């Protein structure tokens, strides 16, 4: 039924957001890029995150944007293959000006991850998951 899932996020400065994500190693689909938007490609399944300038975003939702990352409506989880990738991403986030709110650590015995906030306060976590160790009910 649904072909693809897209995410739209507001950003204060599209140029700065592009620089931030580029430093983390992500690329952009220029076909969907513009003055007030950029299309961030995440993952292997062409999961697209459209970053919109705040005013453009508000035009879509007719709603306010949560102030300054004080509250959170959504969390994105990026699954990676190794613990090293988690550590590496945390390092890159710091260098690019993001904030680590959860240091890399083992979670529930079968995950290893960290949590970070991007330049606009949107929250992400980077996780390595070992489903073979996942507790069975």
């Amino acid at each position, binding site marked *: *039924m*649904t*072909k*693809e*899932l*897209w*995410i*739209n*996020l*507001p950003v204060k400065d599209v140029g700065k957001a592009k620089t931030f994500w580029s430093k983390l190693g992500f690329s952009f689909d220029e076909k969907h890029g513009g003055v007030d938007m950029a299309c961030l490609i*995440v*993952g*292997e*399944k062409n*999961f697209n995150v*459209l970053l919109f300038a705040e005013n453009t*975003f508000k035009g*879509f*939702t*007719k*709603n*306010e*944007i*949560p*102030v300054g*990352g*004080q*509250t*959170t*409506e*959504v*969390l*994105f*989880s*990026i*699954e*990676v*293959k190794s613990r090293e990738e988690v550590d590496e991403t945390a390092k890159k986030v710091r260098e690019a000006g993001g904030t680590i*709110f*959860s240091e890399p650590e083992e979670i529930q015995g079968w995950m290893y991850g960290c*949590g970070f906030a991007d330049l606009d306060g*949107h*929250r992400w*976590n980077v996780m390595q998951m070992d489903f073979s160790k996942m507790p069975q*009910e």
Partner: protein
Amino acid sequence: MNVYVNLPVKDLEKSKEFFSKLGFEFKQKFTDEKCGCMIVGGDNYVMLLVEEFFKTFTKKEISDATKATEVIVALEVENREKVDELFNKAIEAGATKNTEPMIEKFMYQQNFQDLDGHVWEVFYMDESAMNQS
């Protein structure tokens, strides 16, 4: 590299019922009393997490989505009819209309707010027409 979208919900059972009425299925292996793993677009997942559980990951208060919107989750469907179909199902299941439909040359979309106020967009994009312009 997989990506999961996690959204907080007040009442997981009601939310699961809501999205089931829209035609979505849940992956049972990752669904329990705290979390519903909804399959979207073949192999992407939207995780519906009860609010307290959600907060353990974000270490932040949850926004009141009816008052401020941080994200639009957008569902691309195959044609205009399917946009209306999914949108109408959502309204019947208790969603609120968010904005007027957007009708443009290559795009057609309808937006709704789910039971928790999260904004969803259902859209059709005619890529062939877009490429010709």
